[in-house]
C-alpha cells in the first residue's frame, strides 16, 4: 500500500517534469501500431493507390469478391472451430492443473513455469514437422485433431500466465481450505469459489488464445494444409492473387477477432456482475 502510493507519487512527479517527450513517445508508439492497421483498412476499399498519397477512389468490390470466394465460408468456419476448440481444451486442461499445483503441489510450480515457456523456445516449423512425424497414424495423422493438439500446446502460455496470476492474487490455497472446512468438496469449491474469483484471468487467457489461434498460419499449413483450410491460409493465398482482396480478408479477420473478444468480455462481465471487485482480496 505504502509502496504503491510512493510509486504513484514518483510517477506523477516524473510526468510533471517531462510531459513533452513522454507524449512524443506515446505518439510514436501509436503511429507505429496503428499505421499498418489503418493502411490495411484503407487499402481494402481503395480503387487505385500507387500514384497518390491517398487512394484515387473508394469501392467495396473487394469485399464482394472476398465474400464470393468459394472458400470464404468454409475457412471462416474452420478458423472459428479451431480457435474455439483450442480455447475450450486449453481451459479444461490448464485451469484445474494450475489450481491443483497452486493449492496442493506448490513444489511443482517452478517446473510448470518452465514448461510454459518451452512453447516459445521451439520454432513452430520444428514443432509442426515433429508432430507430423510422430503422429503419422490414423486417425491423428495430418488431421484437424492433431492440429488442435498442436495449437493447444503452442498457445498454452497465453492461458497459463493470466490464470496463474489470478490464482496467486486470490490466495486460492486458503480459500480452498475455508471451503473444505465448511463441508464443500473440490468441485464445489472450484465452481463456487475459485472460478468466479479468477474469471478475469480466465477471460484474458481465453482472449489471448483465441486471437493467437485465429491468426495461426505455420502449424495449420504444415500439419493439415489444404485438408482443413483456415482463414489465415486463405488470406495468404490471396496475397498472391489480389492484394486488395487480401486486405479485405484481413479486415474481416480483425473484425471477427474484435467481435469475439467483445463477446467473451460481455459474457465475463455478465458473470462478474454478481461479484464486483472480485479481486479485492489482498
Amino acid at each position: 500500500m505504502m509502496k504503491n502510493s510512493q510509486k504513484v507519487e514518483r510517477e506523477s512527479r516524473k510526468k510533471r517534469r517531462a510531459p513533452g517527450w513522454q507524449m512524443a513517445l506515446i505518439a510514436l508508439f501509436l503511429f507505429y501500431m496503428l499505421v499498418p492497421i489503418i493502411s490495411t483498412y484503407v487499402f481494402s476499399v481503395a480503387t487505385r493507390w500507387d500514384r497518390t498519397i491517398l487512394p484515387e477512389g473508394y469501392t467495396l468490390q473487394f469485399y464482394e469478391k472476398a465474400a464470393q470466394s468459394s472458400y470464404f465460408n468454409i475457412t471462416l468456419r474452420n478458423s472459428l472451430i479451431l480457435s474455439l476448440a483450442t480455447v475450450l481444451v486449453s481451459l479444461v486442461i490448464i485451469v484445474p492443473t494450475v489450481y491443483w499445483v497452486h493449492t496442493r503441489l506448490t513444489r511443482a510450480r517452478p517446473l510448470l513455469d518452465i514448461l510454459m515457456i518451452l512453447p516459445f523456445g521451439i520454432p513452430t516449423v520444428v514443432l509442426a514437422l515433429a508432430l507430423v512425424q510422430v503422429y503419422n497414424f490414423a486417425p491423428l495423422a495430418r488431421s484437424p485433431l492433431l492440429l488442435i493438439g498442436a495449437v493447444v500446446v503452442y498457445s498454452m502460455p497465453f492461458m497459463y500466465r493470466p490464470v496463474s496470476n489470478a490464482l496467486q492474487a486470490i490466495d486460492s490455497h486458503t480459500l480452498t481450505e475455508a471451503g473444505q472446512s465448511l463441508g464443500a468438496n473440490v468441485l464445489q469449491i472450484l465452481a463456487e469459489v475459485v472460478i468466479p474469483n479468477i474469471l478475469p484471468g480466465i477471460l484474458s487467457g481465453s482472449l489471448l488464445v483465441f486471437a493467437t489461434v485465429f491468426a495461426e498460419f505455420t502449424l495449420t499449413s504444415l500439419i493439415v494444409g489444404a485438408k482443413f483450410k483456415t482463414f489465415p491460409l486463405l488470406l495468404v493465398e490471396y496475397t498472391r492473387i489480389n492484394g486488395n482482396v487480401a486486405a479485405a480478408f484481413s479486415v474481416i479477420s480483425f473484425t471477427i477477432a474484435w467481435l469475439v473478444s467483445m463477446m467473451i468480455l460481455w459474457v465475463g462481465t455478465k458473470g462478474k456482475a454478481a461479484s464486483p471487485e472480485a479481486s479485492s482480496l489482498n
Partner: protein
Amino acid sequence: MAYLELKSVTKSYSGIDVVHDFSLDIEKGTLVSFLGPSGCGKTTTLRMIAGFEQLDDGSIQLDGSDITGVAPNRRDIGMVFQAYALFPNKTVRENISFGLRMKKTPKNEIGRKVDTVLEMVRLQETANRYPHQLSGGQQQRIALARALAVQPRVLLLDEPLSALDAEVRVVLRGEIRRIQSELAITTVYVTHDQEEALSISDKVVVMNKGIIEQVGTPEEIYRAPQTRFVATFIGTANQFMGIASGRDTVVCKNIKLFADGVKSFTDGQEVVALVRPENIQVQAEQPQRSDWNVISGIVETITFHGAVTRLAVNASGQRVVADVTVANTKPVSLNQKIWLLFPPSACQVMAAEE
C-alpha cells in the same frame, strides 16, 4: 474419555519433526490455546486436527471415533483463518450460507440460521455487503459467524487476531470468548500472543520446538511454570544462574539467594532461580530483613509502562528487572543505589540444563 484426543501425533518435514509425540485431551465445551513462538508446531497441529495436514504417526479421535484419515470436508470441524479467507465473490449472507448449503439445509432454515449468527457477532446490518466493504475486524467476525453457522463439532482458530489492530484485537478476543462460552463449543485457539492465550483460555498448551512444554490453566502456567522455557516465554522472569547449596540456598556468581525448592536438587547441581519482576520490592534504604533476599544495585534504566514502572538494576553484574507501582514506591532516579527485596517463595528453582 475426552471429546477430542490427540494421541502421539507426529509430523515431520524432510526428516525433521515439527510436531513430536504430541498427546493431548481436550474436554467438550472448553477453549484450549496452543501458545508458542513461531515455528513451534502449533499451527501444524491445528491443521492436522482440521485435516489439512496428514499425520506421520499417531491418531486423532473426535467424540469416540477415529478421524485421522477423514477428509477435511467430512470432519464437521470449523476453522477461522488469520487472513479471514472470506469468499470475495460472495456477500456476507452468501458467505455464511455457503456451509449450510453444502450441508443441504432447507432454504428457510438457512435464512434463519444466518440471521442468528449475524446477530451473535453483532453485524446484522452487513448482510448484503461484500467482504471488501468491511473492516478487518468485521471480516473476521463474519468468518467466525460463517464457521459457527454450520454448528461444527470443533472450532479451530488459527491466529485469528494477528492481522488486526491492537484495540480491535482486545475487543474481538473478548467476543470470541463470550460466543464460545455461550455456545459451549469445543475450541482450539492458536496464538503466539501470551496475553491473548492467558486471557481467554480454559487451558493453555505451551509448545516449543514441536513438543508440549506444559499444559495447564492460565494461572498454573503463569504462577507455576514447569520449565525454564515456559517461565521465560510467559511473562518476564529474572534468571539467576547458580549452584544448589544446602536445603535453601542458590549460590550465584556474586549473589546468594534463599529459595524454596532447592532441597529437591543435589548439592553442587547447576540450577537457575527464576523471579518475576512484579514479586520484587524496591527500597531506597537498606532494609533489615534476614528471612528475605536483599540485593543492592544501581538503577540503569527506568521504563514507564503506565500501571507499573519497570526498573533495570545492575546488581553486582547481574541484571535484574523489577516492576514498581507508582502508588507504593518513592520515585527513584537513574544511577541511584537501591535495594531489591523478595521472599524465598518468589524464587522458583529449576535445573539449568533441560
